[in-house]
């Protein structure tokens, strides 16, 4: 008879401290996550390697539809524009475009990406302080919406128009005091000191530009819905002045982005899931302000939103593997993962939730999670209570869909595969892992440095 051996777990003892976090009731923090949209985490890792980013198409669509519903049930004219910088992998952008979202871009590169995805030029919003003249000309030709950021841009745009027979459609970006600090006054024209009004009169006075909208983007990861109410109210005020004093009705108000996802910010005491306002809360604050402003029903401006993070963060996962365990000089446990801040850039400001991808016992340990980089700043979590993880075990990092796949760094290793699981539960590779060949493609080595002899 073969006797079954017992399941092994490495032995450990834990000091019973008076002051440390007690574990009672915190176990929900680490339920194993073995499937994403019905696809097993282990099979994804086996097929696409570790680490790997995984996006849920179902979740992206659900987020988008919920956000649209939040606004459209409150306000008649709403348009979302996908913020390319949040995640500009084409497959991701096209999910949003299929859902009806326009494109919001902040560089010539992003602008061309949107065109390449088939977004009609008149449904691209071009933001940002760095628009090159050739980008601007292309945007004018395509009838895109140019959002002017500063006076130098305004003057050069007026100048460029001399060579064009088309009147470009423009809006100005307005910055303002919404009671939230810091004020993002480095972008756009200030409301309170009259700069914004000054820019508006210059635009209309030039006779060469068509002012169609007003734009603001008051910050990122905003936790106060009241700030959006203030922003909406100030834009409404400007719009009314445009109509009454300059006889230029404003077609749209663009409230920008900045809605937070439910990630927990580093240093925050309470978790994001409990404290972050919902899209409904923001929609209520914004739409009730505009509706109460006193526009005539047929003159209500189109409301544009450039949400990024809130629509995709929770649709993204990062799957990775434990490389090693070690004990630090102070006795704390350290776990080294095969992903670090190079690809999980958001670890700098979030305390990402991390789940084991396999079953575990109820014993847990406080540990530091490090990435594999040879840099001291490569810390995924400063302190996290997780079950005992062994070398080779897998983990899933939650809510990584926003910014990581655009701000990731290529440093000492290649960027990994990105996979999207479609609504039927089929995984698709949507961005291949980078290779040495890909990376060196752009390199030129002068002839005299081509050979070495060691």
């Amino acid at each position: 008879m073969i006797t079954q051996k017992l399941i092994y777990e490495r032995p450990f003892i834990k000091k019973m401290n008076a002051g440390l976090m007690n574990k009672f009731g915190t176990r929900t923090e680490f339920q194993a996550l073995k499937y994403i949209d019905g696809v097993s985490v282990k099979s994804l890792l086996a097929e696409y390697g570790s680490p790997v980013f995984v996006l849920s198409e179902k979740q992206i669509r659900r987020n988008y539809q919920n956000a649209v519903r939040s606004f459209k049930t409150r306000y008649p004219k709403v348009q979302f524009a996908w913020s390319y910088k949040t995640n500009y992998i084409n497959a991701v952008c096209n999910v949003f475009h299929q859902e009806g979202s326009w494109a919001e871009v902040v560089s010539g590169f992003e602008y061309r990406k949107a065109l390449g995805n088939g977004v009609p030029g008149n449904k691209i919003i071009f933001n940002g302080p760095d628009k090159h003249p050739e980008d601007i000309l292309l945007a004018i030709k395509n009838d895109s919406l140019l959002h002017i950021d500063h006076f130098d841009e305004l003057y050069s745009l007026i100048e460029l128009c001399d060579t064009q027979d088309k009147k470009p459609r423009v809006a100005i970006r307005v910055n303002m005091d919404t009671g939230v600090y810091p004020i993002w006054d480095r972008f756009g024209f200030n409301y309170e000191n009259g700069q914004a009004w000054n820019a508006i009169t210059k635009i209309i006075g030039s006779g060469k530009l068509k002012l169609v909208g007003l734009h603001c983007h008051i910050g990122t990861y905003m936790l106060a819905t009241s700030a959006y109410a203030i922003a909406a109210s100030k834009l409404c005020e400007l719009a009314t002045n445009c109509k009454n004093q300059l006889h230029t009705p404003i077609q749209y108000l663009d409230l920008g982005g900045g809605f937070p996802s439910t990630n927990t910010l580093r240093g925050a005491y309470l978790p994001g899931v409990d404290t972050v306002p919902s899209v409904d809360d923001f929609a209520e604050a914004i739409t009730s302000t505009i509706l109460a402003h006193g526009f005539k029903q047929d003159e209500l401006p189109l409301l544009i939103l450039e949400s990024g993070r809130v629509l995709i963060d929770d649709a993204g996962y990062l799957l990775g593997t434990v490389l090693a365990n070690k004990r630090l000089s102070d006795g704390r446990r350290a776990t080294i993962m095969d992903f670090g801040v190079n690809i999980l850039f958001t670890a700098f400001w979030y305390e990402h939730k991390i789940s084991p991808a396999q079953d575990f016992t109820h014993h847990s340990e406080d540990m530091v999670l490090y990435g594999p980089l040879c840099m001291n700043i490569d810390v995924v979590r400063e302190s996290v209570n997780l079950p005992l993880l062994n070398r080779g075990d897998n983990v899933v990092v939650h809510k990584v869909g926003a910014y990581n796949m655009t701000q990731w760094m290529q440093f000492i290793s290649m960027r990994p595969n990105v996979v999207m699981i479609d609504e039927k539960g089929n995984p698709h590779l949507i961005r291949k892992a980078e290779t040495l060949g890909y990376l060196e493609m752009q390199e030129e080595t002068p002839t005299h440095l081509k050979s070495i002899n060691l």
Partner: protein
Amino acid sequence: MDKHTKKPLVIAVTGLNAIDSPGPGVAVIRALREGLDRELRIIGFSYESLEPGIYMHDIVDKTYQIPYPSAGIKALFERLNYIHAEEGMEIIIPNFDAELYNFIRLSDRLAEIGIRTFLPNIEQLEARDKINLLKFGKKHKFHVPEDKVINKAEELNKLAEDFGYPLVVKGKYYEAIIAYTIEQAHKAFYKLSAKWGHPIIVQQFINGTEINIAALGDGEGNAISIIPMRKLYITDKGKAWAGITLEDQELIDLANHFVKATKWKGGFELEIMKDAKGHLYIMEVNPRFPAWIYLTAGAGQNQPATLVKMALGEKVAPFTKYEVGKIFIRYSWDHITDVKEFQHLSAYGEL
């Protein structure tokens, strides 16, 4: 209330840390045991394993550890459900600032499973938050010290010019440090932000006499009980060592005005500073009973017991008198227990 009820009333209380900077739990329980004319079963909720109340078995019948507020609402609710299945709780009285957000957010779901609370709502909680106190004071015409909410240490330089020294640097939830130089202010900023997160509140220093008011609002704008107290002696942590009940109509009026303006529901404490001109500044509003709450029972207005009556739906008329000149003197007392109890609680989360 029915004296012959067989089943004891099960009340859960947090804040069992009756230490040098005490939580109010043990004081609340003493007041309940004296003020309610029926048998009680007191469930203690603890966060740490050495909160003295846990081991005081004549005060607390049974203690359960609960997850820290930072673990979130879901974790708390799951733990409360487990405890509720064991104990059949009727009322929970939370006593920590940092846990209130979660308990308030849960109050409807707790009511659905038969657990009552008597708490302010989130709007009331946030209006009196240190971060919003200035706005709140201006809106309702209270004197409040000038302050500024900051996220960056660099902002301290400007504030030092505006407010002058000393500056009061405060953490988001707890602790205040008085800084007399810019270096001290920076140090305080980093210390408090590391401990309690952002933002940090910097407040103008008001010189005067400190007075505290413990009060109880019914949620409809009526103050059911108001007891003003002056600390007679404080510890090096600024906590009351001894205090005495005062008679001062201005203080009563202030608390009444506060309850009327906020429609406050539940217990709270006003920290008042009376300056040389006699202005009453509201320095802070604590959204729960203070640690010295047992004095209200001693002075004839048992606020915890009254809160329980209101939580149970009883209509309570406002108290009209209390004994002036009642003194509390806080003392420490070494309670003896065995390492087995400590181990049991640490390992199983119950004792």
